[in-house]
C-alpha cells in the first residue's frame, strides 16, 4: 500500500469522515482515494470555479478551502499548497456524526502527514 493510501486510510478512522481523496488541483488527477468518494467527483472543478471567480472579483490571497453543505453531509475540500501545483484533499463528512470544526481540524492534521 502506498504512503498516500495509508494516510488517507487513517483519515477514515476519524468519526464522521466516510471518504477521502487526494487530487491534483490543476489536472484533476486522482493520486489516492479511500472510502466513499462519490461526492468528491467534481471537487476539482468546484475549487477551480471558486478560485477563479474569487480572484476575478478582487479577492486577494490563495484559496484555502471550499465547503459545500447538503442536508446530510459536508463536502470539504482543502487546498494543500506545495512547491509546484497545489493538491486538493477532499473529504465527505457526515453531519450527524461530527461537526464541521472538528472535521476540519482532523483533516488539516492528516494533510500535514500526506506529503511528509
Amino acid at each position, binding site marked *: *500500500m*502506498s*504512503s*498516500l493510501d495509508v*494516510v488517507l486510510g487513517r483519515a477514515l478512522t476519524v468519526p464522521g469522515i466516510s471518504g477521502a481523496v*487526494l487530487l*491534483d488541483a*490543476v*489536472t*484533476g*488527477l486522482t*493520486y489516492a482515494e479511500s472510502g466513499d468518494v462519490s461526492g468528491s467527483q467534481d471537487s476539482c472543478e468546484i475549487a477551480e470555479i471558486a*478560485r*477563479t471567480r474569487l*480572484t*476575478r472579483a*478582487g479577492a486577494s490571497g490563495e484559496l484555502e478551502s471550499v465547503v459545500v453543505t447538503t442536508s446530510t453531509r459536508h463536502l470539504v475540500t482543502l487546498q494543500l499548497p*506545495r*512547491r*509546484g*501545483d497545489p*493538491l486538493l484533499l477532499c473529504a465527505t463528512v457526515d453531519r450527524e456524526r461530527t461537526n464541521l470544526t472538528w472535521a476540519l481540524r482532523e483533516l488539516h492534521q492528516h494533510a500535514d*502527514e*500526506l*506529503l*511528509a
Partner: protein
Amino acid sequence: MTQSGTEEPLADSRNVPALLSALRDRARSCTVRVTGAPGGSIHVRDGLVVAMETPGAPGIEGLLLRSGRISEEAWSEVRASDTTHEHLAAELVARGLVGAGELEVISLGALFDAAFALSLAVPDTWEVADPVPALHRNAGVTPERLLDEVSRRINLLAGEPGSAAALARTRLRSVPTAGLPGTAAGLPARHQQVLAHTDGRGTARDIAFALGRGLFAVMMDLRHLLDRGLVQPHTSSAGIRPSTATRGAPTAPPSTASSAAPRPVTLPRREPGRNSAPEPRPHD
C-alpha cells in the same frame, strides 16, 4: 514492431494500449521501447505501468530539479550512491530530500503526463525488452486507468485551435494588451508565470520544461489564457512584418530626354578661403 524476451510472443499487440493490456494479463515485468515523435520508454512491473519516460514531457528528474525541490549537487550525490539506479526513490526519501508522499505524487503525475504526451502522436514502432531500472515510487497503474485518464485529458483540451495535439504543436504568444497594467492582475500566479513564457518561440512542452511543471497542466493553463484572449497563436514574422518596400509607382526607366531627368545632387564641396575660423573679437 518487434518483440524480444524469453517468453512466448504477445499476440495481441496491434497497438501500444493492446500491448500493455496483454502484458497486464501475463503480469509481465519489462520495458516497452516506443519509437517515433516523441517516443519513449514504458516501464512495466508485474503487469502494471510504474513509469514512463519521454522527451515529450518532463520526467521525475526534471520535475524535481527544475522546480527547485532538490539541487543538482544533491541529485548527483544520490545517483552516485546508487550506481544501479534501482533504489533512487528510496535514496531520495532516506536522505530527506523529498517526502515519501510528495515523491509518490510526483511519480504518478509524471507517469500520467508522459502517457498523455505519448498519446499526442502515433508511434512508429514498439518493442518489448527486459526491464531496466527506472526512478519511480508508486504501486503501478493498470493500462485501463491510463487510457481513461488520457481520454479525459484529451476531451478537456478540445476546442480552438483544434485538438489537444494541435494545441501542443502551436506556439503561442501573449497579446500586446496582456502587458498593460491590470490586465493580468486577476490571474493566479501560475497563469501569470505561463503568460510570461508565451513569447511565440516555444510550445507547451518547452514551457513545461522551463517551469518544471507537467505538460498537461501547462496546456490547461494555456487553454485558460486562450479563452480569456490573453494569448494567441503565433504567426510567422514574415506575415506580420510591415513592408519596407518603396511605395508608389515603380521607377520609370531613364528617359532619353535629359531635360526631364532630375539633376544629380552633389555633395557640397569646401572651397579654399571659405568657412575659415572667425577673426578674434576684442573681448575674447
